[in-house]
């Protein structure tokens, strides 16, 4: 039963991936006219003849000289070799290499943020649920209201302004040398942490509130269940009930929201990276967008989608492993 379920989910994830990569292939080919036109370099001062040559050359370089179907085959074949194409940047770097260089820096931000918000969110959420209706709970309530209504990038801007420019506690913008000089020495790691402080803080704020809320809600839900009431009736101490019975069961539904955060781990920081000029995947994507570097853009897009599909799949399977009560595949 379980094995067939796992196989089914994996196949379904594969199906979604195929659909997504097909979409990804066709989106740049949408619209009227010659799709290769988007890949031509600016004409600048080239003469018409020279420009025609360059255009022809560009068509060949980016494989627009064969039929769309053949292009699609090539594209899929490329994926098997982890080849997402070649950027339009000078020197034509491989998209995969560009992603590889930026990915760790985004992960530094998002993984740290995830950990911090999980730790603080879980603790605070439990506290708020335990002290339901007391001031701890209403602090959470007010923080939630504000954090939903204020866009994250605005909070980030304000942090950059007050903590970075006015108080000069942290670098207001990321120091670009951070990446170039990084050598795993203690100093280099401290520099990275120092620069990451503001982006992480502004991202973690939303995460903390979110996790506190989910934790609070599921803790409260579990508290009302029979076995907790029974446990209390048995005269177990409050802390024992909390840790042994409530938390263990309350944390289970949280895997879904953690899974969601994980799938947004790479693409989720686009705006914050932009605010602090952090050299991660988000800024890479925006660079690609502003320079109309279509191969790079679509390559990142596919990478993000693939990552999200994988994260979803893992979360689903993880959930099955964790919760034996799950009845498989039932939909309302």
């Amino acid at each position, binding site marked *: 039963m379980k094995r067939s379920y796992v196989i089914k989910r994996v196949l379904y994830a594969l199906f979604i991936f195929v659909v997504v990569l097909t979409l990804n292939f066709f989106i740049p080919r949408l619209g009227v006219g010659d799709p290769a036109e988007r890949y031509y*370099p600016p004409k600048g001062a080239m003469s018409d003849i020279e420009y025609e040559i360059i255009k022809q050359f560009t068509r060949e370089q980016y494989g627009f000289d064969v039929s769309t179907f053949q292009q699609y085959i090539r594209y899929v074949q490329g994926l098997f070799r982890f080849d997402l194409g070649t950027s339009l940047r*000078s020197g034509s770097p491989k998209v995969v290499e560009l992603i590889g260089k930026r990915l760790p820096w985004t992960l530094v931000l998002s993984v740290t943020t995830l950990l911090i918000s999980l730790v603080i969110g879980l603790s605070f959420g439990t506290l708020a649920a335990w002290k339901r209706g007391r001031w701890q709970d209403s602090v959470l309530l007010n923080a939630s209201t504000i954090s939903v209504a204020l866009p994250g990038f605005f909070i980030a801007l304000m942090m950059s302004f007050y903590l970075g420019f006015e108080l*000069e506690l*942290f670098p207001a*913008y990321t120091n670009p*040398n951070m990446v170039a000089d990084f050598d795993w020495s203690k100093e280099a790691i401290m*520099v990275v942490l120092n620069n990451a402080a503001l982006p992480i803080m502004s991202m973690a704020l939303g995460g903390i509130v979110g996790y506190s809320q989910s934790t609070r809600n599921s803790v409260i839900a579990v508290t009302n269940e029979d076995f907790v009431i029974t446990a209390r009736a048995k005269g177990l101490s409050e802390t024992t009930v909390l840790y042994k019975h409530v938390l263990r069961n309350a944390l289970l539904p949280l895997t879904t929201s953690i899974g969601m955060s994980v799938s947004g781990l790479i693409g989720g920081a686009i705006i914050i990276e932009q605010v602090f000029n952090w050299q991660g995947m988000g800024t890479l994507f925006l660079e690609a967008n502003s320079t109309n570097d279509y191969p790079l853009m679509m390559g990142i897009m596919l990478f993000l989608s693939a990552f999200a599909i994988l994260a979803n799949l893992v979360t689903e399977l993880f959930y099955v492993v964790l919760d034996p009560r799950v009845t498989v595949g039932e939909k309302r």
Partner: protein
Amino acid sequence: MPRARGITIACLVLLTGAALLQTGCQKTEYLRRTDSTNTLYVGVVESSFPVAFMPWLSRDGIAPTIASMLYSTLFSYDDETGGFLPGLARDWCYVDAQGAPIVTESGGIDYARVETEGVKVLRNPQTGKNERYLTVRIELDPHARWSDGHPVTAEDVYYTFDIARNNYLSNHAGALAWTADLLHLYSNTGQLQLQGVFTYNHGAADLGYPIAEAERDLVVYVHVRGVLGAVTSLFTTILILPHHLWEPVVSRQNQLNSRSPDAHMQHLYQNPVGSGPYVLDAAASGPSQIVLRRNELYHQTREDSSPLYTVETLRLVLYQEINVAIYAVMQGHIDMLSAGLSPNYVKLFEGRDDLFLSIAEGVFTQTLVFNVNPVASEQTPLRRLLSDARVRRAIALAIDTDMLIRLVANGAATRMSAGLIAESLTDFCNPSADILHGEHAARLEEANDLLDQVAPQRDAQGYRLLEGERVTFNVLGHPGEMELVAFLEIQLQKIGIKIRYQAKGNSPETTHLWTSRFDMTLHGVIFSLANVDIMLNAHFVALGRTSNYGRLIEPELAAAIEEMRSTLNLHRKFALLYDLQPVIAGLFYKVPLYTPQIISIARTDRYTGYEVVPGEVVFNSTNLQRIQRVESPGDAEPSADDGAVSRCEPGERQ
């Protein structure tokens, strides 16, 4: 057990909080502040640094600047005189059929004789037509060296020109270099159809071009089309490649411009060997930083044979946003910025004596272009109105350029004459082309008189009417130009013409320019002595879809420009340029608005002796040759604004 878990969680929270606070107190040490070497930290505002240093492949952003520091051209152009300054080559001349120089007694080029003795005719095997051509003799500097120690020879020049023309091997990379006027022709299958570059080893003797044994490695003869401009691009834009490195690597299977270069070529891309004043330190460079070290083998030196360039090491640091870069300069993370700044920022630097503010003469002129000749399907009554020169003249008269300079450009701009040649080129600028001067009130009156002849009716708001419709034009521009359009709107209101901003598409293909679906647009033009023969043609003669900025058809002007391009007498060419300016001005086809000045900043705490170089930001080769490292022990001493920062306890770092 449960209690322990609670403690663990609490500890984790405390630890993360403490770690964050701790890092906050340890201010990042920026290398520059403690760097006592002769290293200039330059901020570059760019989306990314180039990863390949093949000069022909990297044509945008900072890449050409870096390429020009790693490689050299044969000559450089002297913008003031129109002559050439030595580079890899030290001398050149036109020669006659026997290879004898066509020079005057004083050694200068004898233009009168170039037209008679210099021009020869050959049959172009590709077109089958006869072609006028000139032969040019180039003599290299014997001291020139590649950064790996090899001498720069005539074979390098031959190889560079040859592969630029050979699409079979260079995969069209050569088309990116300006070699179109070089009569060295290849077929698409890589067969040499017509040789146009000759050296000792490549057939110079066969054509009777003399090369003495002693200078067999130094002399190159080339055949160029019979126009004066031909040598300009060959001499000043083509960076010469080392043939001893490239020739063994480039092949039909491994083309120069390949998207999937093999390991050898990749190595050459990433570890360039050039003959320029700097060499790349590939090991220290990366995606966000490029390190250039002075080329100690560089052939040009000072008279006392000390290095021409005073700065030993250049560290280019990538910033993707201009504000981030300005912040970095003000905080002292970098020495200077290789980017032009908006005049709005000037206020930010006021009262900072640790900053050098460079306000240099600009290179491009912002012009208002009228669509005088739309394609038939895009013709409208209003555009027909624009083809009336009186209307264009009236609009030009109504624009108060002084006000634009003062208010839009915040005073950081200069006027440009309607002939579009900068006044600083005193020998070439024709004062009679400056027809848009005079008192603004009188000009407005004249403009209104002119328009009353065309469209005398006005509506209640004072706007002119054409067939009952308000005369309204859209000005195509990008969002940064909105305020300029807003100003023009106010100014043209005074002559009863309404204009509105219309957004350009984000690529040429989606922009209305492409199909001539616009009334007016804003267009930056650059006319310098070096490019004027090509650019006048592109702006006022060509009717191609891609050079579509209003499609002017003016046979007389076109003929004059053609003559200017094709004459072989430099004096005649410059005389024509002088005469053309009033004609161009009188067409009111591109009305100059202003020439923005180039604003840039540098810090003065580590280097001094900056100079404002016309047309350049503070990071330029003149300054690299002039500035001096401040020799003080207190290099790492915090500057004024850093002093107030140390409010946290210093960590274990100094």
